[in-house]
C-alpha cells in the first residue's frame, strides 16, 4: 500500500503514535538512568510500527495481551503515558499502583490485559478472552503480541491449537525482532519464517514487513475481519528489529555493528516521517508540531510521576484476593 491510499488524519495518527512510543522509551531510559525508575526496562525502540499498526486495526472494545517489551503496545492501545510513567516510577498513581512495573502494566478499561514477564505467558490468556467473546456472541477480538522467542514455547503451540480448533476470534501477532534475548532467531528455530507455524493449526500465516506501519495495519485489519466474521484466528509474523539491547544495560556482544547500522537505516519512525514529507506532501511544520506536542505530553508524564506519592509499605498486603474472608487468607 502507498501512503496515498490513506487519509492525512490516519497518516498523522500513525506518525504521532509511533513518535510517542519512541520518545516514551527514550524518556524512560533516561529516567531510569537518572534514578526515577527502579526496575528493568526492555525497550521497544525500533518496533514502533508493529505496535501502532496492529492496534490501529482494533476497536476500543477489543483486547490485547502484551509482553516484557510492551510499552509500545500499551500506548498504541490507548494507554496514558502519565500513568505508565508513574507505574515505571513505582508510584501509587501508576496503572498498577506500583505493584506491577514495566513487566505487568495493564488497564482493563482499555482492553489491555497485561504486559507479561513470562515469554508466551499472555498467549493462552488471549485465547481465553477470545473464548469469552465467542461464548457471548460478541464481535470482539483478542490480539496477542509476542516475540519470535515465544513461538518456541509450549504455551504458543497449545494456544494456537485451541484457537484453531474452536475458531476463536484471536490474532496471534508475532514481532520477529530476530533475537530471543541474546540468541539470534536462526539459532532458536529451524524455520526462517515463523508464520509457517500457522499451518499446523489450520489458520492463515502471514509474514509482513514489521517496520512498515501500513503493511502491519493491512495485515492486521484482514485478520481482524476474518476473526469478527467467525472464521477464526490468524498468525501474523512482522519482521522487525530490536535496536537496543534485550534490556537496558545489555552489552550486546552477540551482534555486529554493521547489522545494527543496517537496521537503523530502516528505522520505522524515521522512515514514515520521510514518506509523509516526500510522498504524502505533508509540510514539515505540521510534523514538527506533532513532535512538540508529544514532547510536552511526555514532560507532563514525567512531572506527574515525580510528583506522585510512593506507596505506603503496608499497602503491599492489599489486592491479593477479591474476597479475603475477613483477612484469613494472610
Amino acid at each position, binding site marked *: 500500500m502507498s501512503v496515498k491510499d490513506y487519509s492525512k488524519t490516519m497518516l498523522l495518527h500513525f506518525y504521532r503514535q509511533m513518535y510517542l512510543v519512541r520518545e516514551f522509551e527514550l524518556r524512560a531510559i533516561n529516567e531510569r538512568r537518572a534514578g526515577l525508575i527502579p526496575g528493568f526496562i526492555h525497550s521497544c525502540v525500533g518496533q514502533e510500527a508493529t505496535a501502532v499498526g496492529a492496534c490501529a486495526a482494533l476497536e476500543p472494545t477489543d*483486547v490485547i*495481551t502484551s509482553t516484557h517489551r510492551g510499552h509500545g503496545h500499551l500506548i498504541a492501545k490507548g494507554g496514558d503515558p502519565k500513568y505508565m510513567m508513574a507505574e515505571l516510577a513505582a508510584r501509587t498513581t*501508576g*496503572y*498498577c*499502583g*506500583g*505493584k*506491577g512495573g514495566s513487566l*505487568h502494566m*495493564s488497564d*482493563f478499561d482499555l482492553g489491555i*490485559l*497485561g504486559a*507479561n*514477564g*513470562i515469554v508466551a*505467558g499472555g*498467549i*493462552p*490468556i*488471549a*485465547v*481465553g*478472552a*477470545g*473464548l*469469552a*467473546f465467542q*461464548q*457471548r456472541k460478541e464481535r470482539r477480538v*483478542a490480539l496477542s503480541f509476542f516475540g519470535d522467542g515465544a513461538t518456541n514455547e*509450549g*504455551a504458543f503451540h*497449545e*494456544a494456537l*491449537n*485451541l484457537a484453531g*480448533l*474452536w475458531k476463536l476470534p484471536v490474532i496471534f501477532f508475532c514481532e520477529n525482532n530476530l533475537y530471543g534475548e541474546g540468541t539470534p532467531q536462526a539459532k532458536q528455530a529451524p524455520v526462517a519464517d515463523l508464520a509457517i507455524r500457522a499451518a499446523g493449526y489450520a489458520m492463515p500465516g502471514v509474514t509482513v514487513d514489521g517496520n512498515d506501519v501500513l503493511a502491519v495495519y493491512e495485515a492486521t485489519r484482514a485478520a481482524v475481519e476474518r476473526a469478527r466474521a467467525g472464521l477464526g484466528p490468524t498468525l501474523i509474523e512482522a519482521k522487525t528489529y530490536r535496536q537496543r539491547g534485550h534490556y537496558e544495560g545489555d552489552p550486546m556482544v552477540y551482534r555486529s555493528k554493521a547489522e545494527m547500522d543496517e537496521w537503523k537505516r530502516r528505522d520505522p519512525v524515521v522512515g514514515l516521517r520521510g514518506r509523509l514529507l516526500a510522498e504524502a506532501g505533508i509540510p514539515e511544520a505540521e510534523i514538527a508540531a506533532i513532535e512538540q506536542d508529544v514532547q510536552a505530553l511526555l514532560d507532563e508524564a514525567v512531572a506527574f510521576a515525580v510528583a506522585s506519592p510512593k506507596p505506603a509499605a503496608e499497602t503491599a498486603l*492489599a*489486592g*491479593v*484476593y*477479591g*474476597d*479475603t*474472608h*475477613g483477612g*484469613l*487468607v494472610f
Partner: protein
Amino acid sequence: MRTITYSQAIYETMREEMARDPNVILIGEDVGAFGGVWGVSGDLVKLFGEDRVRDTPISETAIIGAGLGAAMMGLRPIVEIMFADFLPVAGDQIVNQLAKARYMSGGKARVPVTVRVTTGAPGSAAAQHSQSAEGWYMNVPGLKIAVPATPADAKGLLRTAIRGEDPVLFFEHKMLYATKGEVPDDPDFAVPFGQAAVRREGADVTVIAIGGMLPKALAAAEMLAGEGISAEVVDPRTLVPLDKDTIIASVRKTGRVVIVHEAHKRLGPGAEIAAMIAEEAIGYLDGPIVRVAARNVPLPYSPELENFVLPGVNDIVEKARDLVRGRL
C-alpha cells in the same frame, strides 16, 4: 437433607450454578461426551450444550490460560484438570498468571476461576497419577486451596468457589467420590472458606485430618476411644485460607496434636500447620507436634510398596497413642 455421594454433590453444584448463571462454563479434558473420566460431569453437556461444556485437547496450559482469559472478560469458568499430577504441565499459567493477575494489576483484574482437580492415590496408579499436590501451591500467594472431605463440603465449598472472586484449586480426593453423606437441600447452601469443622469432639489429642484422610482419622479416633483415648478430629476444609482459630482452640484444649495428610511429609500442608501451631500455641503443648503423612518417596505401583508409603489408620492410632502415653 438428602444422602448423596461426594461425586453427585459436585455434579449437582455445577449443574445448579450453570443453570443459575450463564457465565459459568466448564472446560477440560473429557468433561463433555465422556462425562468426566471420574464420571463427575455426567450429562452436563446434554443439559447445557457443547458451547458451555467444552471438551478440550490434552493441553493443560491452554486450559488454564483459557479459563483465566475468559474470567478476565467476565465469565466464571470451572476448569477441570484430570489429575493433580498434571497441574505442573500448566505451571506458568497457574503460578505466574492465574495466581498473580489480580495483584500485579493493582487489584483490578478479576479472576474467578475454579480449578477442579483430582488428588490422592486411588491404588496402584503409581508416581504420576497419585500425588497430593495441595502443599505445592500453598506457597503461592493468590491461590485459594479447598480440600473438601465430605459430600456436604464438596457441595458447599464448590459453590463458594464458583461464586467467589478468586482462583481456587479445588482438590477432589479420588477415594472420596463414592462416599456418601447428608447434604442440605437449600439451593444456595454454601460453606465459607477459612472455617474448619470439628468432626468429632475429644479431650486428649487433636487429630487434624486433610481431605481424603478424614475417614481414616475418624476410624482411628474410634479405635482410640476403645483404648480410652479421646481424640478430637478437626477438618480444615480449606488450606488457604486456613482457620487458625479453630485449630489453636482445639490444640489448647487437648495439648497434643497429630496432623494427618496424604501429601508427602516434607513441606506438605502439615509443615505449615505445625509451624503455625508452634508459633501461636507452643506453650499449651504437652508433647511434640506429630505429622502422619506419605513417606518422602515417589508413590510406587506395587500395592505392598504403596501401602507402606501411604499413611493409614494404624499409623494415626499408633502415633496418637504414643503421644498421649508420653512415649514421643
